[in-house]
């Protein structure tokens, strides 16, 4: 019984590690792209243009107000089917790409709100000081506001990244061979559910543990002494 457990724990690991590659890839890509998109969504939400504000608030509300799994299914199954109806030919969508798109769009909504909180925590004195020196709004954002806001955001971004890592398990629903999917494939061959799910949980734990440490380091490294 015990030898069985360890045998499957070890036996499932190569497949799970391969899956972990996709997990980390999707998480990193979505985090990076989400930061970029989130930045624009955030700037839109705090802009003076009413149209941009409404658009970006709407974006945030939609992506935070609907389940991630639904978003993934919508993008992977929903959109290609709509395009197929419109243009009369199939639109195959790589599940990995669809998944990354879904995660990026979702992460951007959360990151935009994290950024907004970071910026508003600075108070208006910093922006005024920068603008009083003749810097344009964009320059003030780039050289004064965002460097500070990003530093303050590091813990919250760490949380977001850990959430992202764990949520990639949802991609098993669209056949991306990430950790969970690989695990289930292994179980279907061996019927070893307990040791495999144990290994899956362990692997996620190790990944999030490492990510948390890295973000703690970053936080320490970029601390502003004020």
């Amino acid at each position, binding site marked *: 019984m015990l030898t069985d457990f360890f045998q499957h724990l070890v036996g499932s690991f190569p497949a799970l590690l391969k899956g972990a590659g996709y997990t980390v890839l999707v998480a990193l890509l979505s985090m990076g792209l989400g930061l970029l998109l989130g930045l624009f969504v955030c700037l839109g939400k705090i802009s003076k243009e009413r149209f941009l504000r409404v658009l970006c608030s709407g974006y945030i509300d939609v992506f935070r107000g609907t389940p991630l799994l639904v978003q993934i299914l919508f993008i992977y199954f929903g959109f290609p089917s709509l395009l197929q109806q419109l243009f009369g030919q199939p639109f195959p969508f790589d599940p990995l790409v669809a998944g990354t798109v879904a995660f990026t769009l979702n992460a951007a909504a959360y990151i935009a709100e994290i950024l907004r909180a970071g910026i508003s925590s600075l108070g208006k*004195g*910093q922006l*005024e*000081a*920068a*603008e*009083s*020196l*003749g*810097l*344009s*709004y964009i*320059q003030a954002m780039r*050289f*004064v506001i965002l*460097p*500070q806001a990003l*530093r303050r955001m590091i813990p919250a971004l760490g949380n977001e990244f850990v959430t992202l890592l764990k949520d990639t398990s949802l991609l098993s629903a669209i056949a991306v061979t990430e950790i969970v999917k690989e695990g289930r494939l292994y179980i279907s061959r061996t019927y070893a559910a307990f040791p495999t799910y144990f290994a899956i949980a362990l692997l996620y734990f190790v990944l999030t543990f490492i990510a948390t440490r890295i973000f703690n380091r970053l936080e320490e490294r970029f601390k*502003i*002494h*004020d």
Partner: protein
Amino acid sequence: MIEIRGLQKSFGELKVLKGIDFAVSSGEVVCLIGPSGSGKSTLLRCINLLDTPNQGEISLEGKSYQTLPKEVKELRSEVGMVFQHFNLFPHLNVLENVMLAPAKVRQLEDGPLRELATKLLREVGLADKAAAYPGNLSGGQKQRVAIARALAMQPKVMLFDEPTSALDPEVVGEVLAVMKQLAKGGMTMVVVTHEMGFAREVADRVVFMADGKIVEEGPAREFLANPQTERAKAFLGSELK
């Protein structure tokens, strides 16, 4: 140098400035005094358009400035501002604080700019703090860095918004000393202050504001020794006690 005509400013329903005409000539040091809420800070902030006036005209050296982004930017690069709460950039060290705006706005080269910044820090007595971060400075030191930072843009006018109000009494003197030195050097200055001693000693002219209007103005010593209006008398009486 600066000319303001018919300036009006409201925040929502509240009328803060009710028609201000105000001029400062080149090399002049003007102190704006008056009770809290009289609109003196708002007037100062309208001069570099940090607050946008509802009505009125602002011109610098004969050029009238509108609230178009490009003009606002140009005006601000000619007008230095020092804030009550310093507003130094905490993620940059002292030298970087001073160098940021001239590098990005004036596109000065690094070598000459570094020289200029070092010279300015020497003038405010902080050459040895160039590598320090604002978080490690005292209030007085922060404010002196803020003055150097504004001067680095080589402005034509310097605005001071209650520059000593947030300071411990013991360091007020060092900031005022830097401002005196600046005035002596011929800088055009507009200073919102409660430091009557500074006004008496350094200002050429004192402008007394109350309820969004200029109530009385005159040469500093004369005005402070012998105000004409009841409002100014009452204010100065309470300030001196």
